[in-house]
């Protein structure tokens, strides 16, 4: 419908063997992308391959791209408060696509009281505002399967 279709773009550089591939997505209607672009640059500098979706991704679009792009990590950046309803829908779709073995992360404006539910939904890495870039990248390195 009206959601922008993600454009595979902004890869981290030439592939040398298999580098960790990350789908970095902006879920829902939130238009704040300063943070996600900062994180994308940090991930690329850390040697990961990053596929940034651009704004306004539906759960269906995120799941589809995760499958098609054969990524190792699915990372979301949410700053406008709709992270829980989005993640509940996305979980079902990722499970249906057999992507439970991938690393699921979320960062942004995430109140502390929501962290437990996000982890229970399968988003093992929760990085609220104030998280350091290197902490995010180290977490991916240590936990990617």
């Amino acid at each position: 419908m009206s959601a922008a279709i993600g454009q595979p773009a902004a890869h981290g550089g030439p592939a040398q063997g298999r580098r960790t591939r990350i789908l970095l997505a902006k879920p829902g209607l939130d238009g704040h992308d300063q943070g996600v672009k900062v994180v994308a640059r940090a991930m690329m500098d850390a040697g990961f391959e990053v596929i940034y979706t651009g704004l306004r991704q539906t759960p269906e679009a995120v799941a589809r791209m995760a499958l098609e792009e054969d990524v190792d990590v699915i990372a979301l950046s949410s700053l406008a408060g709709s992270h829980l309803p989005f993640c509940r829908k996305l979980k079902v779709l990722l499970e249906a696509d057999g992507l439970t073995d991938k690393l699921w992360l979320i960062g942004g404006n995430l109140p502390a009281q929501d962290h437990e539910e996000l982890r229970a939904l399968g988003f093992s890495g929760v990085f609220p505002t104030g998280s350091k870039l290197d902490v995010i990248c180290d977490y991916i390195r240590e936990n990617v399967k």
Partner: protein
Amino acid sequence: MNDRLSSELRPVFNESGLEVKPLYTAADVAESGGLEMLGSPGEYPFTRGIHRQMYRKQPWTMRQYAGFGNPHETNQRFKYLIANGQTGLNVAFDLPTQIGLDSDDPLAEGEIGRVGMSIDTLRDVEIAFDGIDLAKITVSMTINGAAAIMIAMYLAMAEKRGYDVKQLRGTAQNDILKEFIGRGTWIFPVEPSIRLVGDTIEYCAEHAPKYSPVSVCGYHIRESGATPAQEMAYAFCIARAYADEVIRRGVHVDEFAGRLSYNFNIFGNLFEQVCKFRAGRSLWAKIMKEQYGAEKPGSMWLRMIAAGGGGGLTFEQPELNIVRGAYYALISALSGTQTMALCSYDEAYTIPTEYSARISLRTMQILIEEMGLTETVDPLGGSYYVETMTNRMRTQMEEIMAEVDAQGGIVKLVSEGTIQAKVSAQAYQMQRDIESGAFPKVGVNCYRNEKEDDHPVEFHPYNEDDARAQIDGLKRVRAERDEAAVARALERVARDAQAGVNLMPAIVEAVKAYASVGEITHQMVKVFGRYREPIRF
């Protein structure tokens, strides 16, 4: 003496990249261009303020950003703020409204009323402003992609309530070019988006001549990573793009330029910000006079809201943001702004509660009542440092604007994603500098608390029932309205979009028939298509 002192110390640069010396004298002022651009308040080039008496005559308007849930709830918050001494309203809309979706659109699920008020039809606008005297309280609407529709709804609501629209004041943000750079509530591609901005300016110049149809925002460009000098320079480039669009249609600059306004950001070095505003005020006056041939002083005025910016506030030790907010308000007052707003201390966590919004409001009131900030115009004027840095900031803004022009102009650079990539790279560097401690941030990379969770922030609650009530309200309006009139009006929107005539009369007809934001947007999307982001790193 002065030079020897400088050379002994490590050089210091402000965020805009200009060196800050340990001491300034008359020689520095002279070397930077002298006092040629200083003038007197209320006189060209307005460095010291656009009015002769400034706050002595009337303090700045206090306009906290507010809105959430449905129009009923937002109406209550508006009345609370007014009862507490707020002198203007600044309306926050939810994301579905901002990007032209009705509350019953599947994509709106989970987002209704979350970051602002949900508006579907004129009925909602009537409810939101019920009981508020629009002649006394001016309303600013933070709406961009759907701005043409919201302006039409606001004017229609005021007209229905018996106000003379020719006398109606108020502001719509309606700055779509900056939405492509940061903030992201775009709908249509770049060219038709600029056309719509032109349509609103042209329409208001004729039908609502005291209404400000555009507030050009350096604010969000700064939040996206721009320096203070870039913030002003890019905003001026964008304002020129809108002015060119209107002038191209045969409207004289003096017929609309007086109603263009600005929205700028405040965080960082106090003196750099104050000089940024003083420099920007004279540069904009010079651009309008020399490049556009404006003759009315009002066409040359940099009328602005200078708002204490979220970019400077921290998630860590949130109560320190109250202190930062007070400094930002001081900067805003020293800068000669027309309107002031502050991000509340809890905005790294949640939308403001009544409590945090009231603290922001009281912060501004303390400046007026206790600190003497309204007594003297441009109190920093004449400082060797401030005058030198004002000149240097102005020169740098001119250089940035010349660079944009040399690269093909702001519309081209935004369409390609060039500006986005540039400010995003800067934001990344700043984040790295904060994390390494190179750029000090109290509570973040120095003076951290051992225990970070000892000051819990109260969260503004989100109520799912409000979203259901909003959808039910939309259904009721659809059941009650004259469907044939709606269909005719919507058909006219598509026809006029195709024909390239000014779309505002068609949109006004549609909103008066209670067509919804989503329905009207859909008609335009059929003709214009949707924007696709250029993703560049």
